[in-house]
Protein backbone atom coordinates (compact mmCIF):
# COMPACT_ATOMS: atom_id res chain seq x y z
CA UNK A 1 0.00 0.00 0.00
CA UNK A 2 1.23 3.47 -0.87
CA UNK A 3 0.15 6.46 1.17
CA UNK A 4 0.79 10.07 0.24
CA UNK A 5 0.34 12.16 3.35
CA UNK A 6 -0.04 15.89 2.93
CA UNK A 7 2.50 15.67 0.13
CA UNK A 8 3.66 19.10 -1.00
CA UNK A 9 6.32 20.21 -3.43
CA UNK A 10 7.27 23.79 -4.08
CA UNK A 11 9.71 25.17 -6.62
CA UNK A 12 10.43 28.61 -5.28
CA UNK A 13 7.11 30.39 -5.01
CA UNK A 14 5.34 27.94 -7.28
CA UNK A 15 3.49 25.04 -5.67
CA UNK A 16 3.65 22.03 -7.98
CA UNK A 17 1.97 19.55 -5.61
CA UNK A 18 -0.29 20.97 -2.96
CA UNK A 19 -1.07 18.94 0.20
CA UNK A 20 -2.00 15.74 -1.62
CA UNK A 21 -3.48 12.93 0.48
CA UNK A 22 -3.98 9.64 -1.28
CA UNK A 23 -3.94 5.92 -0.56
CA UNK A 24 -3.26 3.36 -3.27
CA UNK A 25 -3.98 -0.24 -2.41
CA UNK A 26 -1.66 -3.15 -3.17
CA UNK A 27 -2.35 -4.59 -6.63
CA UNK A 28 -4.33 -1.56 -7.74
CA UNK A 29 -3.93 -0.02 -11.20
CA UNK A 30 -4.15 3.64 -10.38
CA UNK A 31 -4.26 6.56 -12.81
CA UNK A 32 -3.17 10.12 -12.15
CA UNK A 33 -4.84 12.40 -14.66
CA UNK A 34 -4.23 16.06 -15.19
CA UNK A 35 -3.32 18.66 -17.77
CA UNK A 36 0.25 19.70 -18.48
CA UNK A 37 1.85 21.20 -15.39
CA UNK A 38 -0.75 19.65 -13.08
CA UNK A 39 1.89 18.02 -10.87
CA UNK A 40 1.73 14.43 -12.15
CA UNK A 41 5.39 14.05 -13.06
CA UNK A 42 6.44 15.90 -9.90
CA UNK A 43 4.44 13.36 -7.87
CA UNK A 44 6.08 10.45 -9.71
CA UNK A 45 9.49 12.07 -9.18
CA UNK A 46 8.82 12.25 -5.45
CA UNK A 47 7.70 8.62 -5.45
CA UNK A 48 10.99 7.74 -7.12
CA UNK A 49 12.87 9.97 -4.62
CA UNK A 50 14.50 12.03 -7.38
CA UNK A 51 12.66 14.99 -5.86
CA UNK A 52 12.24 15.36 -2.12
CA UNK A 53 8.94 16.73 -0.82
CA UNK A 54 8.85 20.24 0.63
CA UNK A 55 6.38 18.89 3.19
CA UNK A 56 4.51 15.68 3.89
CA UNK A 57 5.67 12.13 3.33
CA UNK A 58 5.24 8.99 1.30
CA UNK A 59 4.75 5.65 3.01
CA UNK A 60 5.24 2.33 1.30
CA UNK A 61 3.74 -0.55 3.26
CA UNK A 62 3.74 1.73 6.28
CA UNK A 63 7.41 2.72 6.02
CA UNK A 64 8.69 6.12 4.89
CA UNK A 65 9.99 6.15 1.33
CA UNK A 66 13.21 8.16 1.43
CA UNK A 67 16.49 8.13 -0.44
CA UNK A 68 17.98 6.00 2.32
CA UNK A 69 15.17 3.42 2.30
CA UNK A 70 16.91 0.75 0.22
CA UNK A 71 14.50 -2.03 1.24
CA UNK A 72 11.49 0.04 0.16
CA UNK A 73 13.17 1.22 -3.02
CA UNK A 74 13.86 -2.41 -3.93
CA UNK A 75 10.09 -2.82 -4.36
CA UNK A 76 9.74 0.03 -6.85
CA UNK A 77 10.52 0.47 -10.50
CA UNK A 78 9.91 3.59 -12.50
CA UNK A 79 9.33 4.14 -16.18
CA UNK A 80 9.83 7.82 -16.69
CA UNK A 81 8.38 10.07 -19.34
CA UNK A 82 11.83 10.76 -20.74
CA UNK A 83 14.12 7.99 -21.92
CA UNK A 84 16.10 8.15 -18.72
CA UNK A 85 18.98 5.84 -19.54
CA UNK A 86 22.51 5.98 -20.83
CA UNK A 87 22.19 6.70 -24.53
CA UNK A 88 25.64 5.30 -25.25
CA UNK A 89 24.94 1.88 -23.75
CA UNK A 90 23.60 -1.06 -25.71
CA UNK A 91 20.17 -2.51 -24.95
CA UNK A 92 21.82 -5.43 -23.19
CA UNK A 93 24.06 -3.17 -21.12
CA UNK A 94 21.10 -1.07 -19.98
CA UNK A 95 19.44 -4.24 -18.72
CA UNK A 96 22.60 -5.51 -17.06
CA UNK A 97 23.24 -2.21 -15.30
CA UNK A 98 19.70 -2.27 -13.94
CA UNK A 99 20.17 -5.83 -12.72
CA UNK A 100 23.45 -4.95 -11.06
CA UNK A 101 21.97 -1.92 -9.32
CA UNK A 102 19.33 -4.26 -7.88
CA UNK A 103 21.89 -6.87 -6.78
CA UNK A 104 20.64 -9.53 -9.17
CA UNK A 105 22.84 -12.52 -9.91
CA UNK A 106 24.51 -12.69 -13.33
CA UNK A 107 22.57 -15.78 -14.42
CA UNK A 108 19.32 -14.18 -13.31
CA UNK A 109 20.16 -10.99 -15.23
CA UNK A 110 20.88 -13.00 -18.37
CA UNK A 111 17.71 -15.06 -18.10
CA UNK A 112 15.46 -12.11 -17.34
CA UNK A 113 16.99 -9.97 -20.08
CA UNK A 114 16.45 -12.72 -22.64
CA UNK A 115 12.88 -13.24 -21.48
CA UNK A 116 11.88 -9.56 -21.47
CA UNK A 117 13.60 -8.63 -24.71
CA UNK A 118 11.95 -11.58 -26.43
CA UNK A 119 8.60 -10.61 -24.95
CA UNK A 120 8.89 -7.09 -26.36
CA UNK A 121 10.50 -8.08 -29.69
CA UNK A 122 13.73 -6.28 -28.83
CA UNK A 123 15.86 -9.40 -28.71
CA UNK A 124 17.29 -8.83 -32.21
CA UNK A 125 18.31 -5.31 -31.19
CA UNK A 126 20.09 -6.22 -27.97
CA UNK A 127 23.49 -5.18 -29.25
CA UNK A 128 22.23 -1.85 -30.59
CA UNK A 129 23.19 1.37 -28.87
CA UNK A 130 20.21 3.07 -27.25
CA UNK A 131 20.62 6.29 -29.22
CA UNK A 132 20.07 4.39 -32.46
CA UNK A 133 16.74 2.88 -31.37
CA UNK A 134 13.42 4.33 -32.51
CA UNK A 135 11.23 6.13 -29.96
CA UNK A 136 8.91 3.12 -29.69
CA UNK A 137 11.83 0.76 -29.11
CA UNK A 138 13.26 3.02 -26.43
CA UNK A 139 9.87 3.05 -24.74
CA UNK A 140 9.77 -0.75 -24.82
CA UNK A 141 13.26 -0.89 -23.42
CA UNK A 142 12.17 1.37 -20.58
CA UNK A 143 9.39 -1.10 -19.82
CA UNK A 144 11.80 -4.05 -19.98
CA UNK A 145 14.14 -2.26 -17.61
CA UNK A 146 11.26 -1.45 -15.28
CA UNK A 147 10.15 -5.08 -15.18
CA UNK A 148 13.66 -6.50 -14.91
CA UNK A 149 13.58 -6.50 -11.13
CA UNK A 150 10.07 -7.90 -10.57
CA UNK A 151 8.91 -4.81 -8.67
CA UNK A 152 5.90 -4.73 -6.38
CA UNK A 153 5.16 -1.19 -7.49
CA UNK A 154 5.57 0.13 -11.01
CA UNK A 155 5.47 3.88 -11.62
CA UNK A 156 4.59 4.75 -15.20
CA UNK A 157 4.92 8.34 -16.27
CA UNK A 158 3.24 8.76 -19.66
CA UNK A 159 4.36 5.31 -20.81
CA UNK A 160 2.75 5.54 -24.24
CA UNK A 161 3.65 9.13 -25.06
CA UNK A 162 4.67 9.37 -28.71
CA UNK A 163 3.58 5.82 -29.54
CA UNK A 164 1.38 5.06 -32.53
CA UNK A 165 -2.09 3.56 -31.98
CA UNK A 166 -0.97 -0.04 -32.54
CA UNK A 167 2.06 0.20 -30.28
CA UNK A 168 -0.11 1.85 -27.63
CA UNK A 169 -2.61 -1.01 -27.74
CA UNK A 170 0.26 -3.51 -27.44
CA UNK A 171 1.53 -1.62 -24.42
CA UNK A 172 -1.92 -1.70 -22.82
CA UNK A 173 -2.08 -5.47 -23.29
CA UNK A 174 1.35 -5.77 -21.70
CA UNK A 175 0.37 -3.59 -18.74
CA UNK A 176 -2.83 -5.56 -18.18
CA UNK A 177 -0.83 -8.77 -18.08
CA UNK A 178 1.57 -7.26 -15.59
CA UNK A 179 -1.24 -6.02 -13.39
CA UNK A 180 -2.74 -9.52 -13.36
CA UNK A 181 0.33 -10.51 -11.34
CA UNK A 182 -0.91 -8.20 -8.56
CA UNK A 183 1.65 -5.56 -9.16
CA UNK A 184 0.62 -2.10 -8.01
CA UNK A 185 0.76 0.26 -10.96
CA UNK A 186 0.59 4.04 -10.83
CA UNK A 187 0.10 5.57 -14.23
CA UNK A 188 0.12 9.17 -15.36
CA UNK A 189 -1.27 9.80 -18.78
CA UNK A 190 -2.73 12.38 -21.10
CA UNK A 191 -4.72 9.72 -22.91
CA UNK A 192 -8.07 9.41 -21.20
CA UNK A 193 -9.03 6.28 -23.11
CA UNK A 194 -5.85 4.73 -21.74
CA UNK A 195 -6.82 5.48 -18.15
CA UNK A 196 -10.36 4.32 -18.82
CA UNK A 197 -9.17 1.08 -20.36
CA UNK A 198 -6.57 0.26 -17.74
CA UNK A 199 -7.17 1.86 -14.37
CA UNK A 200 -9.16 0.54 -11.43
CA UNK A 201 -9.26 4.04 -10.00
CA UNK A 202 -8.15 7.43 -11.19
CA UNK A 203 -7.42 10.72 -9.48
CA UNK A 204 -7.86 14.07 -11.15
CA UNK A 205 -5.09 16.49 -10.38
CA UNK A 206 -4.90 20.12 -11.41
CA UNK A 207 -2.52 22.89 -10.36
CA UNK A 208 -1.07 20.50 -7.80
CA UNK A 209 -4.35 19.88 -6.05
CA UNK A 210 -6.02 16.50 -5.99
CA UNK A 211 -9.64 16.46 -7.15
CA UNK A 212 -11.96 13.51 -7.35
CA UNK A 213 -10.64 10.00 -6.82
CA UNK A 214 -12.79 7.12 -7.98
CA UNK A 215 -13.15 4.42 -10.59
CA UNK A 216 -13.58 5.66 -14.17
CA UNK A 217 -17.09 4.16 -14.25
CA UNK A 218 -18.10 5.90 -11.03
CA UNK A 219 -16.75 9.23 -12.25
CA UNK A 220 -18.64 8.84 -15.53
CA UNK A 221 -21.82 7.87 -13.66
CA UNK A 222 -21.53 10.91 -11.45
CA UNK A 223 -21.33 13.18 -14.49
CA UNK A 224 -24.02 11.30 -16.44
CA UNK A 225 -23.56 8.25 -18.62
CA UNK A 226 -24.97 9.91 -21.73
CA UNK A 227 -23.70 13.02 -23.45
CA UNK A 228 -25.35 15.20 -26.02
CA UNK A 229 -22.93 17.26 -28.08
CA UNK A 230 -24.38 20.40 -29.47
CA UNK A 231 -22.16 21.84 -32.17
CA UNK A 232 -22.83 25.26 -33.61
CA UNK A 233 -20.64 27.35 -35.84
CA UNK A 234 -18.98 29.11 -32.95
CA UNK A 235 -19.36 26.78 -29.99
CA UNK A 236 -19.35 23.15 -28.95
CA UNK A 237 -21.22 22.22 -25.85
CA UNK A 238 -21.79 18.87 -24.16
CA UNK A 239 -24.69 18.21 -21.85
CA UNK A 240 -24.75 15.10 -19.64
CA UNK A 241 -27.66 12.91 -18.56
CA UNK A 242 -28.12 10.03 -16.16
CA UNK A 243 -30.42 8.10 -18.51
CA UNK A 244 -30.72 7.65 -22.23
CA UNK A 245 -34.36 8.75 -22.10
CA UNK A 246 -33.44 12.08 -20.56
CA UNK A 247 -30.77 12.60 -23.22
CA UNK A 248 -33.21 11.80 -26.05
CA UNK A 249 -35.81 14.13 -24.56
CA UNK A 250 -33.19 16.89 -24.50
CA UNK A 251 -32.19 16.15 -28.08
CA UNK A 252 -35.77 16.75 -29.17
CA UNK A 253 -35.67 20.23 -27.69
CA UNK A 254 -32.49 21.25 -29.43
CA UNK A 255 -33.78 22.71 -32.74
CA UNK A 256 -36.03 25.16 -30.93
CA UNK A 257 -33.31 26.01 -28.38
CA UNK A 258 -30.82 26.73 -31.14
CA UNK A 259 -33.39 28.72 -33.06
CA UNK A 260 -33.84 30.93 -30.06
CA UNK A 261 -30.26 32.14 -30.56
CA UNK A 262 -30.45 33.10 -34.21
CA UNK A 263 -31.92 31.70 -37.36
CA UNK A 264 -28.49 31.41 -38.89
CA UNK A 265 -27.05 29.48 -35.95
CA UNK A 266 -30.02 27.13 -35.93
CA UNK A 267 -29.52 26.28 -39.56
CA UNK A 268 -25.90 25.25 -38.90
CA UNK A 269 -26.33 23.56 -35.49
CA UNK A 270 -26.27 19.82 -35.13
CA UNK A 271 -26.48 17.55 -32.11
CA UNK A 272 -25.53 13.98 -31.37
CA UNK A 273 -25.97 11.49 -28.58
CA UNK A 274 -23.13 9.34 -27.31
CA UNK A 275 -21.78 7.62 -24.20
CA UNK A 276 -19.90 9.82 -21.76
CA UNK A 277 -16.20 9.11 -21.56
CA UNK A 278 -13.55 9.76 -18.97
CA UNK A 279 -12.33 12.55 -21.20
CA UNK A 280 -15.68 14.30 -20.63
CA UNK A 281 -15.19 13.95 -16.89
CA UNK A 282 -11.67 15.33 -17.24
CA UNK A 283 -12.78 18.28 -19.35
CA UNK A 284 -15.70 19.12 -17.09
CA UNK A 285 -13.87 18.70 -13.79
CA UNK A 286 -10.61 20.28 -14.80
CA UNK A 287 -12.61 23.13 -16.23
CA UNK A 288 -11.33 23.19 -19.77
CA UNK A 289 -14.43 23.55 -21.86
CA UNK A 290 -14.57 22.16 -25.34
CA UNK A 291 -15.00 25.63 -26.68
CA UNK A 292 -13.82 26.55 -30.13
CA UNK A 293 -13.40 30.27 -30.62
Amino acid at each position, binding site marked *: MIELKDLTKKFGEQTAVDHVNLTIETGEFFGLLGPNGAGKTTTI*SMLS*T*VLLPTAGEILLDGKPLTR*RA*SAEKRKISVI*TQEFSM*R*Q*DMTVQEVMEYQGRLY*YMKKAEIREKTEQLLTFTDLIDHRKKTVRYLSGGMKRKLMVCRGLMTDPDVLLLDEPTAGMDAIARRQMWALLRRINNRKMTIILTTHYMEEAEALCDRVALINKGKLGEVDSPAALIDALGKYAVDLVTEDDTKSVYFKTREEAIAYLETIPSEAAAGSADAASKAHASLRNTTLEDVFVERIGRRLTVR
Partner: protein
Amino acid sequence: MGILAVLWEKWTEFKRDFYKITVAALVSPLLYLIVFGFGIQTTSHGEPYLNFLIPGIVSMATMTGSFSAVAQNMSVQRLYEKALDQVMISPTPLWQFIVGQIIGGSLRGLYAGCMILLLTSPIRTGLIFNGWTFLIMFLNGMVFSTFALVLSFLAKSYTDAPRYNAYLIVPMSFLCNTFFSIDQMPGGFRQFINALPLSQASGMIRAISANGSLDGLFVTGEYPYGWAGLLILLAYLVVFSLLSFVFIYKKKNL
Protein backbone atom coordinates in the same frame (compact mmCIF):
# COMPACT_ATOMS: atom_id res chain seq x y z
CA MET B 1 27.52 -4.31 -3.94
CA GLY B 2 26.50 -1.04 -5.57
CA ILE B 3 30.11 0.11 -5.87
CA LEU B 4 30.78 -2.81 -8.22
CA ALA B 5 27.74 -1.93 -10.33
CA VAL B 6 29.09 1.61 -10.82
CA LEU B 7 32.58 0.30 -11.55
CA TRP B 8 31.09 -2.11 -14.09
CA GLU B 9 29.34 0.84 -15.75
CA LYS B 10 32.63 2.77 -15.84
CA TRP B 11 34.47 -0.25 -17.22
CA THR B 12 31.84 -0.67 -19.95
CA GLU B 13 32.29 2.98 -20.86
CA PHE B 14 36.07 2.62 -20.85
CA LYS B 15 36.02 -0.43 -23.12
CA ARG B 16 33.62 1.23 -25.54
CA ASP B 17 35.48 4.55 -25.73
CA PHE B 18 38.98 3.18 -25.20
CA TYR B 19 40.61 5.01 -28.12
CA LYS B 20 38.80 8.28 -27.51
CA ILE B 21 39.65 8.21 -23.81
CA THR B 22 43.27 7.33 -24.45
CA VAL B 23 43.81 9.97 -27.10
CA ALA B 24 42.04 12.64 -25.02
CA ALA B 25 44.21 11.75 -22.02
CA LEU B 26 47.42 12.00 -24.01
CA VAL B 27 47.11 14.90 -26.43
CA SER B 28 47.58 17.88 -24.08
CA PRO B 29 50.20 16.30 -21.78
CA LEU B 30 52.24 15.13 -24.76
CA LEU B 31 52.11 18.57 -26.35
CA TYR B 32 53.32 20.12 -23.10
CA LEU B 33 56.12 17.58 -22.87
CA ILE B 34 57.21 18.19 -26.44
CA VAL B 35 56.99 21.98 -26.31
CA PHE B 36 58.30 22.65 -22.81
CA GLY B 37 60.34 19.53 -22.20
CA PHE B 38 62.06 18.97 -25.51
CA GLY B 39 61.49 22.20 -27.43
CA ILE B 40 62.57 24.65 -24.74
CA GLN B 41 65.40 22.78 -23.07
CA THR B 42 66.52 24.34 -19.85
CA THR B 43 67.29 23.47 -16.26
CA SER B 44 65.38 23.87 -13.02
CA HIS B 45 66.86 23.59 -9.52
CA GLY B 46 70.06 22.41 -11.14
CA GLU B 47 68.33 19.51 -12.88
CA PRO B 48 67.17 19.14 -16.49
CA TYR B 49 63.79 20.84 -16.78
CA LEU B 50 62.29 17.57 -18.00
CA ASN B 51 62.88 16.12 -14.52
CA PHE B 52 60.77 18.91 -13.07
CA LEU B 53 58.18 18.74 -15.82
CA ILE B 54 57.40 15.01 -15.98
CA PRO B 55 56.07 14.68 -12.38
CA GLY B 56 53.99 17.84 -12.97
CA ILE B 57 52.55 16.50 -16.21
CA VAL B 58 51.77 13.15 -14.57
CA SER B 59 49.85 14.92 -11.77
CA MET B 60 48.06 17.10 -14.27
CA ALA B 61 47.08 14.11 -16.43
CA THR B 62 45.76 12.35 -13.33
CA MET B 63 43.71 15.40 -12.43
CA THR B 64 42.21 16.02 -15.87
CA GLY B 65 41.61 12.30 -16.49
CA SER B 66 39.66 11.89 -13.25
CA PHE B 67 37.83 15.18 -13.48
CA SER B 68 36.62 14.70 -17.02
CA ALA B 69 35.65 11.07 -16.39
CA VAL B 70 33.17 12.20 -13.74
CA ALA B 71 32.17 15.81 -14.47
CA GLN B 72 30.97 15.46 -18.04
CA ASN B 73 29.46 12.06 -17.47
CA MET B 74 27.53 12.95 -14.32
CA SER B 75 26.27 16.27 -15.66
CA VAL B 76 24.92 14.60 -18.79
CA GLN B 77 23.43 11.72 -16.78
CA ARG B 78 21.77 14.04 -14.30
CA LEU B 79 20.59 16.87 -16.50
CA TYR B 80 20.33 15.58 -20.05
CA GLU B 81 19.85 11.81 -20.15
CA LYS B 82 18.22 11.73 -16.70
CA ALA B 83 19.96 8.39 -16.28
CA LEU B 84 20.70 9.27 -12.66
CA ASP B 85 17.00 8.64 -11.94
CA GLN B 86 17.68 4.94 -12.52
CA VAL B 87 20.22 5.02 -9.72
CA MET B 88 18.14 7.17 -7.38
CA ILE B 89 15.21 4.75 -7.34
CA SER B 90 17.38 1.64 -7.16
CA PRO B 91 18.13 -0.02 -3.81
CA THR B 92 21.84 0.69 -4.28
CA PRO B 93 22.76 2.91 -1.32
CA LEU B 94 23.61 6.31 -2.70
CA TRP B 95 26.88 6.48 -0.75
CA GLN B 96 27.99 3.41 -2.67
CA PHE B 97 27.14 5.15 -5.91
CA ILE B 98 29.30 8.10 -4.85
CA VAL B 99 32.18 5.86 -3.78
CA GLY B 100 31.91 3.96 -7.08
CA GLN B 101 32.11 7.21 -9.00
CA ILE B 102 35.14 8.36 -7.00
CA ILE B 103 37.03 5.10 -7.46
CA GLY B 104 36.04 4.80 -11.12
CA GLY B 105 37.06 8.39 -11.84
CA SER B 106 40.31 7.95 -9.98
CA LEU B 107 41.16 4.82 -11.95
CA ARG B 108 40.66 6.77 -15.15
CA GLY B 109 43.05 9.44 -13.84
CA LEU B 110 45.51 6.75 -12.86
CA TYR B 111 45.29 5.33 -16.36
CA ALA B 112 46.03 8.76 -17.89
CA GLY B 113 49.00 9.27 -15.55
CA CYS B 114 50.33 5.78 -16.24
CA MET B 115 50.18 6.41 -19.98
CA ILE B 116 52.43 9.45 -19.51
CA LEU B 117 54.82 7.41 -17.38
CA LEU B 118 54.86 4.70 -20.04
CA LEU B 119 55.52 7.15 -22.85
CA THR B 120 58.30 8.94 -20.99
CA SER B 121 59.90 5.73 -19.71
CA PRO B 122 62.39 5.48 -22.61
CA ILE B 123 63.81 8.90 -21.65
CA ARG B 124 66.77 8.54 -19.30
CA THR B 125 65.85 10.95 -16.54
CA GLY B 126 66.83 8.98 -13.45
CA LEU B 127 63.42 9.78 -11.96
CA ILE B 128 61.99 7.23 -9.54
CA PHE B 129 58.37 6.13 -9.83
CA ASN B 130 57.21 3.55 -7.34
CA GLY B 131 54.19 2.48 -5.29
CA TRP B 132 54.12 5.83 -3.53
CA THR B 133 53.83 7.57 -6.89
CA PHE B 134 50.80 5.48 -7.78
CA LEU B 135 49.28 6.07 -4.38
CA ILE B 136 49.57 9.85 -4.80
CA MET B 137 48.21 9.62 -8.35
CA PHE B 138 45.26 7.58 -7.13
CA LEU B 139 44.60 9.93 -4.23
CA ASN B 140 44.88 12.97 -6.50
CA GLY B 141 42.43 11.28 -8.87
CA MET B 142 40.02 10.65 -5.99
CA VAL B 143 40.16 14.30 -4.95
CA PHE B 144 39.37 15.53 -8.45
CA SER B 145 36.68 12.87 -9.08
CA THR B 146 34.96 14.03 -5.91
CA PHE B 147 35.43 17.67 -6.88
CA ALA B 148 33.81 16.83 -10.24
CA LEU B 149 30.90 15.17 -8.44
CA VAL B 150 30.29 18.26 -6.32
CA LEU B 151 30.38 20.52 -9.36
CA SER B 152 28.10 18.26 -11.38
CA PHE B 153 25.53 18.34 -8.56
CA LEU B 154 25.75 22.14 -8.65
CA ALA B 155 25.47 22.31 -12.44
CA LYS B 156 22.30 23.87 -13.80
CA SER B 157 22.94 22.68 -17.35
CA TYR B 158 25.01 19.84 -18.78
CA THR B 159 27.01 22.46 -20.68
CA ASP B 160 28.33 23.70 -17.33
CA ALA B 161 30.91 20.88 -17.21
CA PRO B 162 33.13 22.36 -19.96
CA ARG B 163 32.84 25.74 -18.21
CA TYR B 164 34.04 24.30 -14.92
CA ASN B 165 36.90 22.80 -16.83
CA ALA B 166 37.79 26.16 -18.39
CA TYR B 167 37.42 28.17 -15.17
CA LEU B 168 38.94 25.78 -12.65
CA ILE B 169 40.86 22.89 -14.14
CA VAL B 170 42.76 24.69 -16.89
CA PRO B 171 44.10 27.42 -14.54
CA MET B 172 45.12 24.78 -12.01
CA SER B 173 46.86 22.82 -14.77
CA PHE B 174 49.16 25.73 -15.42
CA LEU B 175 49.55 27.30 -12.01
CA CYS B 176 49.75 24.41 -9.55
CA ASN B 177 53.40 23.48 -9.44
CA THR B 178 53.20 21.63 -12.75
CA PHE B 179 55.26 23.66 -15.24
CA PHE B 180 57.14 25.88 -12.86
CA SER B 181 57.86 26.22 -9.18
CA ILE B 182 55.45 28.52 -7.39
CA ASP B 183 58.33 30.34 -5.59
CA GLN B 184 58.16 33.36 -7.85
CA MET B 185 54.49 34.01 -7.24
CA PRO B 186 53.45 37.00 -5.13
CA GLY B 187 52.90 36.41 -1.39
CA GLY B 188 49.24 35.61 -0.66
CA PHE B 189 48.62 34.14 -4.08
CA ARG B 190 51.55 31.78 -3.61
CA GLN B 191 50.14 30.43 -0.34
CA PHE B 192 46.75 29.99 -1.96
CA ILE B 193 48.14 28.11 -4.96
CA ASN B 194 50.28 25.96 -2.72
CA ALA B 195 47.24 24.92 -0.72
CA LEU B 196 45.51 23.56 -3.83
CA PRO B 197 45.51 19.78 -4.23
CA LEU B 198 47.32 19.69 -7.56
CA SER B 199 50.24 21.71 -6.15
CA GLN B 200 50.56 19.16 -3.38
CA ALA B 201 50.23 16.17 -5.68
CA SER B 202 52.83 17.57 -8.09
CA GLY B 203 55.17 18.37 -5.21
CA MET B 204 54.84 14.92 -3.69
CA ILE B 205 55.28 13.04 -6.99
CA ARG B 206 58.33 15.23 -7.66
CA ALA B 207 59.69 14.49 -4.18
CA ILE B 208 59.23 10.76 -4.69
CA SER B 209 60.77 10.91 -8.18
CA ALA B 210 63.85 12.58 -6.67
CA ASN B 211 64.19 10.63 -3.43
CA GLY B 212 62.20 7.44 -3.84
CA SER B 213 59.97 8.25 -0.89
CA LEU B 214 58.32 11.08 0.95
CA ASP B 215 60.78 10.77 3.83
CA GLY B 216 63.42 12.77 2.06
CA LEU B 217 61.71 16.09 1.49
CA PHE B 218 61.84 17.73 -1.87
CA VAL B 219 62.10 21.44 -1.22
CA THR B 220 61.31 24.11 -3.77
CA GLY B 221 61.87 27.54 -2.25
CA GLU B 222 60.13 27.70 1.08
CA TYR B 223 57.91 24.69 0.40
CA PRO B 224 58.82 21.18 1.43
CA TYR B 225 56.58 18.51 -0.07
CA GLY B 226 56.31 15.54 2.23
CA TRP B 227 53.81 13.64 4.29
CA ALA B 228 51.80 16.78 5.02
CA GLY B 229 50.76 16.79 1.37
CA LEU B 230 49.00 13.45 1.89
CA LEU B 231 47.02 14.95 4.76
CA ILE B 232 46.08 17.95 2.62
CA LEU B 233 44.83 15.68 -0.19
CA LEU B 234 42.92 13.57 2.34
CA ALA B 235 41.34 16.72 3.80
CA TYR B 236 40.13 17.75 0.33
CA LEU B 237 38.82 14.25 -0.26
CA VAL B 238 36.88 14.23 3.01
CA VAL B 239 35.37 17.69 2.42
CA PHE B 240 34.35 17.02 -1.20
CA SER B 241 33.02 13.55 -0.29
CA LEU B 242 30.89 14.99 2.51
CA LEU B 243 29.54 17.62 0.13
CA SER B 244 28.71 14.91 -2.42
CA PHE B 245 26.86 12.88 0.22
CA VAL B 246 24.95 15.95 1.37
CA PHE B 247 23.95 16.73 -2.21
CA ILE B 248 22.84 13.23 -3.14
CA TYR B 249 20.93 12.62 0.08
CA LYS B 250 19.61 16.09 0.85
CA LYS B 251 19.36 18.07 -2.39
CA LYS B 252 15.63 18.58 -2.90
CA ASN B 253 15.70 18.67 -6.69
CA LEU B 254 18.33 16.42 -8.20
